[in-house]
């Protein structure tokens, strides 16, 4: 019998085109493209007189730059408009499918891949965006790449790669009510740090992971990059197959049956070797919130803001001090009750239908606090359509939320949606870096239900207190 393998080992081996010492060429099945990290890659192809090897393996959409207000009259910002037009022109020139801004399928690249069945188990998926790790929720090897590699994939349909190490993260137990995939992800980042996964591919397993919905698994894998690992993986199961069946781009008929047979072989073998493993218990986890400017700066909502003097490591202590100054928080005081100005619900982390349902269930029948401006940005046109069918838009609107058009929006604030200096935001996005949501803006990462609760209360709050 051959050596037991992890799911990562299996996908890696099945995609090796060429191997010579450490020089491996890995085949890429799917390439997602957006407007910000692709123009220089297409320009590179033109300058070297190269073509796109397999245009049918790519799918493009504009998401980063696009306004979330009515865009039937145009983009409104000249540079953004040029960048989006350049994407469309490049796709036309090289024969790549482009989802137009007016198309109801338009949305965040990591939300539309799964929605369209473009994302499948056992495949390699790349995109010039670090949150490509999202697609690992389906048991695909998916990671972000830079623009030079975007060009490399366009020209060759491969990447020059070195194999990463295997890291197993087991999350045992059952989550309490209102403890979500976002909280699990933040707890992993808090436990291993933002560099804890550097050089690894993380495989998530355990009861708490298996019981997550597909949407929840996407949230967990999405945030893997914030733990330093380029890719996260969850073995596909019946939930995965059910989600993918009959999606527009997923296999049909005989191909579906063959795919299914293949996918069932993907989970890691018993006895497979991992270079690193940790176990986390979900049972006693409370909803989490970040206090600082790194996603590893995580505390429980009933916790206190750390004191720099309690930290031994010099670099870490000065980083914490810098964070606390930037965030304007008092060391040692409770995080609960910190007043906020803005709430953002959306992004590739938490912009799916389940996230909006979760937030709406908290908001229903209540009003956004008078000191808060709150917005919901669905992850795609299809998410928006579904939410409207369920009446979620009305729940948000009547509570005083803004209900926007799909896009990346205030997750990275490349469009008009951004924090003013010193504004404080409870956000369902993925990064609380300095300036991420707007220069001098202050971001607290939370789950959709926690963001909704903060909007109602006007401060960081324990969502469970709103329910009980």
């Amino acid at each position, binding site marked *: 019998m051959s050596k037991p393998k992890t799911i990562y080992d299996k996908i890696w081996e099945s995609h090796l085109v060429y191997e010579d010492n450490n020089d491996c060429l890995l085949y890429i099945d799917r390439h997602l493209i957006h407007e910000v990290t692709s123009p220089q890659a297409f320009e590179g192809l033109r300058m070297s007189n190269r073509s796109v090897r397999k245009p049918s393996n790519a799918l493009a959409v504009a998401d980063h730059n696009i306004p979330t207000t009515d865009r039937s009259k145009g983009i409104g910002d000249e540079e953004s408009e040029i960048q989006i037009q350049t994407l469309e022109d490049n796709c036309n020139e090289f024969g790549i499918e482009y989802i137009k801004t007016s198309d109801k399928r338009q949305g965040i690249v990591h939300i539309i891949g799964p929605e369209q069945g473009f994302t499948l188990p056992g495949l390699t998926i790349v995109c010039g965006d670090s949150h490509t790790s999202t697609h690992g929720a389906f048991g695909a090897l998916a990671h972000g790449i830079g623009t030079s590699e975007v060009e490399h994939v366009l020209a060759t349909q491969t990447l020059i790669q070195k194999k990463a190490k295997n890291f197993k993260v087991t999350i045992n137990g059952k989550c309490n009510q209102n403890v979500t995939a976002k909280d699990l992800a933040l707890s992993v980042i808090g436990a291993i740090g933002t560099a804890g996964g550097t050089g690894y591919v993380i495989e998530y397993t355990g009861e708490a992971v298996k019981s997550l919905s597909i949407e929840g698994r996407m949230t967990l894998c999405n945030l893997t990059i914030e733990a330093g690992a380029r890719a996260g993986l969850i073995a596909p199961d019946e939930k995965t197959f059910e989600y993918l069946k009959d999606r527009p781009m997923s296999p049909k008929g005989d*191909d579906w049956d063959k795919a299914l047979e293949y996918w069932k072989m993907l989970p890691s073998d018993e006895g497979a070797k991992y270079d690193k493993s940790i176990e986390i218990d979900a049972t006693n986890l409370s909803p989490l919130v970040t206090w600082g400017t790194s996603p590893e700066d995580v505390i429980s909502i009933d916790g206190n803001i750390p004191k720099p003097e309690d930290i031994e490591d010099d670099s870490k202590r000065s980083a914490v001090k810098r964070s606390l100054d930037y965030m304007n928080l008092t060391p040692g005081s409770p995080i609960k009750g910190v007043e906020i100005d803005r709430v953002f619900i959306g992004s590739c982390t938490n912009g799916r239908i389940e996230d909006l349902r979760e937030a709406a269930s908290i908001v229903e029948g209540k009003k956004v606090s008078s000191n808060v401006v709150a917005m919901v940005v669905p992850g795609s046109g299809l998410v928006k359509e579904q939410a409207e069918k369920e009446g979620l838009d009305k729940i948000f609107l009547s509570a005083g939320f803004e209900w926007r058009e799909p896009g990346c929006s205030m997750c990275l604030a490349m469009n008009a949606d951004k924090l003013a200096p010193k504004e404080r935001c409870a956000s369902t996005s993925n990064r609380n870096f300095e300036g991420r949501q707007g220069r001098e803006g202050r971001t607290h990462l939370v789950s959709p239900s926690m963001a909704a609760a903060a909007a109602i209360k006007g401060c960081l709050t324990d969502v469970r207190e709103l329910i009980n």
Partner: protein
Amino acid sequence: MEKFTSVKGIAATMFNKSGNQLSLMMNIDTDMIIPKQFLKTIKRSGLGKNLFDEMRYDMNGNEIESFVLNRDPFTKAKILIAGKNFGCGSSREHAPWSILDFGIKVIIAPSFADIFFNNCFKNGILPIRLSEEKINLLVDDSMKGIEFEVNLINQLIIIKEKEFSFEVDAINKDCLVKGLDDIGSTLEKATFIDEYEKKILDNFAWRVPERD
């Protein structure tokens, strides 16, 4: 890509201040290196003036004097020294583009984020992993503005009579030293890719995306 054999120049160190104590700034993310408002370009060039923009300029666009890259002789730095997990966050290659456009060709840190590390080599930048203890031995000379030589061929950082060796992966080194075009060398293996794609069509047709 320009060939990289050795670089001579001033080294700037990124610190965090806590009271009187200076410590290497850790977790420098790519949002800090090049904020999003500069990602709207469709070119690779011209980003150097916005490198570390929000740390380097105030709200009115004036240079912040205390920031190292605004102070002579560090305005001409070719080497950057920082704390662990340099380049974490977004995959934006605008980060190495802005670093290179400023004139920095070498980054020395205890550790780097994976995507950024990879992006450096694609742009002729050498990221050097060096232990924090070793880095601490470089910092004084860096602050005095003493010239460093980073010799990739011999894998040495040379400061006056002192030498510090560093590790670099053989393939990455070769790529920098020869200024290789990755795509060109991959295309030389096109027959392997052809064979692989034939195998997909013959045995794994489900891997081809379904289209109307």
